[in-house]
């Protein structure tokens, strides 16, 4: 119950006049900002934070296992595990939560129904998912590098910074893929497709490895380069795919 007294009604001010100023809606930049705010409020909840904590625990456990298995190359092996499994899963969880576990158009609807551009709000949601994914992946990658650090490894600070940078790029690219996937099928179940594709084909050195984030991330970490891409090329590819895919998702949700 509201706990409202009937006296409140008498004290309530008169309703505004039924005619008002027509034609005022949120412009596109405002719609994008509203989408970002909407998604961030969804991400500032118990479940996304729990997902991040769980992913961090998994990455740290992998790092300790690798260190105990052998000091030589422990950082590389721990980061490979993190980028192969932990980063895609945690970004998938964050992108789903940013979209309220439904498809992107429905995720934008609570704000778009009041007159904001549906595509603009969806772009904001995708941007927020990319930011959250990048941040979470960067933190997890950096902490993994720190946890797996051994005496024979490169300098700790540089290793952690590079890992965080690669993690941020990969996280944003994953979020772009999941946002685009979230525009397909009912309740956004299409975002499962890039996750499965990355798990199955992301390690290849062919076209699939170049398109999917894992191949480029592994290249940036010093692994095999898909299609012979240079490391700057892979970095640009990851950044561009994050933006382009988020934009494509917004286009699919436009009015």
């Amino acid at each position: 119950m509201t706990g409202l007294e009937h006296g409140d009604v008498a004290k309530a001010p008169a309703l505004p006049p039924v005619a008002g100023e027509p034609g005022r809606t949120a412009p596109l930049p405002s719609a994008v900002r509203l989408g970002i705010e909407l998604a961030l409020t969804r991400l500032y909840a118990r479940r996304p934070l729990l997902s991040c904590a769980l992913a961090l625990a998994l990455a740290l456990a992998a790092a300790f296992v690798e260190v105990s298995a052998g000091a030589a190359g422990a950082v590389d092996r721990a980061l490979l595990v993190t980028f192969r499994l932990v980063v895609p899963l945690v970004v998938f969880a964050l992108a789903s939560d940013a979209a309220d576990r439904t498809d992107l158009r429905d995720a934008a609807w609570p704000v778009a129904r009041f007159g904001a551009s549906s595509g603009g709000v969806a772009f904001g949601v995708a941007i927020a998912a990319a930011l959250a994914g990048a941040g979470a992946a960067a933190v997890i990658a950096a902490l993994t590098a720190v946890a797996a650090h051994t005496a024979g490894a490169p300098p700790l600070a540089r290793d952690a910074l590079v890992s965080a940078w690669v993690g941020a790029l990969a996280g944003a690219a994953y979020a772009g893929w999941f946002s685009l996937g979230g525009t397909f099928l009912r309740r956004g179940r299409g975002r499962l497709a890039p996750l499965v594709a990355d798990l199955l084909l992301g390690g290849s050195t062919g076209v699939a490895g170049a398109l999917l984030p894992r191949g480029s991330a592994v290249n940036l970490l010093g692994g095999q380069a898909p299609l012979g891409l240079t490391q700057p090329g892979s970095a640009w590819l990851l950044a561009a795919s994050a933006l382009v895919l988020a934009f494509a998702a917004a286009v699919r949700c436009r009015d």
Partner: protein
Amino acid sequence: MSSATSIVVLDRVRARDSAGVSGRPRGHLFGLDAALGPGVHAVLGAPEDGTLALAELLSGRVAPLAGRVLVAGREPARSAPTRARLGVLAAAPELPTAGTVAFSVGLALRARGEPARDAAAVLETLGVASLLPRRSASLSFAEARAIELALALTTPAALLVGVFEPLCDVAVPSRSRVQQRLRDLGAAGVCVVVLTSSPADARALADRVHVLDRGVVARTEPGDGERLAGGPWPRPGAHGVVPAPAELLVWIREGTAADARSSDAPDASPGDRGVRALAAALVRSPAVRALAWEAVGDVPHVSSLRVQAADRDAAALAILDAAASEDVNVLAISSPSPSLRNVRAATAAHLVAMRPARRQFGAPAPVQAAASSAPEVGAPAAAGPAGAPPPAASRALLGEAAGIETSSGDRVEAPPAAPGDAAPRPPEEEAAR
């Protein structure tokens, strides 16, 4: 209504909702055509008739599977500026997810181009501003709907206000304020569409009631609802569908009227000089089709008599005549709102009456004279003179005989009609002979 003055146009719309289990459709719209202008329109029907699908279409949440939905010439599903001028109360709350109600309402206001600081003023219009500091997750279903309703009713420069069950499951302190606001909006030239399954709400709110029956608007009635449950008399031979009767509820004080005037409280059991006497008198009245009575549980010495009749006014007069002749103290006569079931039955009768009469194979076509003398659909010709009850033949056609039905289910048949009381045959029957 001409499309020139229409705000909302539905052009051969096919749609379905996704409100069923696992997103399955619960109701459909099949080629719905409608043109709604300024004023308050009630769309009366159950979700299975397509009210949820219609609500989603009007809000712009989905586009129709086929056909067009236009609000002021634009499709709300594809036009954000049009959506900014729609006030919508959905079946389930769809407020922006946010920590507090204030932030959530602020997001909504900013989306429609208003400053977020107006949140308190918007909610105060319905007296629900005390919800602002609450967490969104702590709101009940009805409280969240109340906030949405406040947002819908304060839409700036509204074109269309589409509200789903605005008087049900809405935690507002005063429903009359909601009713008044909807009427004000309608009077100011806004197209207000109230989607409801309650005939009482439809009658209370609307200027016109559109009965949505299995995906199409089957008929439109004035908002007074007088004819909602009373369909036209079916033409003789028109499949024999019975229109739902009008119903009156009579409150009776047991004992004679003289007892009531005296200071002594009557110590009469139900029926001594009250409801039984009135029922016995009414059963002889041709205006009455069926009766049922029961004692009112909470109030001593008061009974209620439910009267079914083809003609509401004739039945009311018959009740007053019977009460005067039997010296029965009638406290009140009310006309209860018909149930949705009654409205559906009347709609079925209406549809049957509108359908051309089926001619038997090989039978000669009716002559022109007979056709011209056939009663108009809905005209009281079959029911006798205007305001008069239907003749016995029509009552037999309707499959109803006047009788008394007690609260225990006993039914006392009315005395048979006198031989000379035979009703004239309907014109079509005469023509067939």
